[in-house]
């Protein structure tokens, strides 16, 4: 179980979660990045930078 670094909500990662995947905290809505699968850990997702895009 991962824990939102902002509000502390416990987040269960689905089985098909991929490292570096982006998800929203179900409580505070903050964008999080999965930084580890075992143990499950999330951190604040990096903020948009000027060179981001397609």
């Amino acid at each position: 179980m991962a824990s939102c670094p902002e509000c502390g909500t416990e987040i269960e990662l689905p089985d098909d979660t991929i490292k570096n995947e982006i998800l929203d905290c179900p409580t505070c809505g903050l964008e999080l990045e999965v930084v580890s699968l075992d143990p499950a850990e999330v951190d604040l997702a990096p903020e948009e930078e000027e060179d981001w895009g397609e």
Partner: protein
Amino acid sequence: MKINLGILASRIRLEEKLLVKEARKRSEINLTIVDPREFTWDNSNLSELDVLLDREISQSRAYHIMELLSNTGITLINDFETVQLCGDKAFTSVKLKKHGVPTPDFRVAFDRESALKAVEEIGYPAVLKPVDGSWGRMVSKVNNRESAEATLEHKSHLDSHYHSIYYVQDFVETGKKDIRAFVIGGEVVGAAYRKSDHWITNAARGGESHPYPLTEELETIVSATSDVLGGGALAVDLLESERGLLINEVNCSMEFKESMKVIDRDIPAELLDYTVERAKVGSEEVTQQQCLV
């Protein structure tokens, strides 16, 4: 033959997740997710890859990694020359114009004063864009000389050196919509309208997808664009105008999660099909070169 596929990505969005899930279903693929934050050049095992699919959200990182991996025997999707052309709106437009592919009228200026002259030549309204921007970021519609002067002054105070290159484009009135088409290996696999309440219609800015048919005109101009820019897998943004369809921008690490809602093709599967096919061709070429040596 097992294909060693690398997906270059530091941020796994829906597109990357679909690609990873599809790759993991295929027994012929040995998948590695390559996070650019986790290696240094040349302390990596990238040389073991047969093919690298660029899905990196940072265009600077992608640009450098694809350049460093050019001519190393790894097949790159897309080729560095294509990444280079699509990564700069001025390069894209000049190349398309040179080959007769219709685009909105444009100018490229290298100084604030000459940029103002370029805007006046294009006429109002005009659009000022960073040459390397994405998602409609810092794209400005200038309706008169006063707003052009103000926008150019603001640009002159921005940090990035790219803001000293001024890309000016004719504003094409399209009724707050444009078309996104996907071309993979020369085949146009689908297209969708992007509609918005704003004149900037990027999906990243809230543009919503609606069906758009694959017309002969669309397929012809998108195929021509792909040919001119070196092929590969591209998302081509088009504008409807009195002159017919115009190529607005071309993106070489295509985002498709919004468009796929209305396109009846499996874009991640087709992108992987193409990637694997290119890897096989690339491996054959390397083997032939080794035989010649």
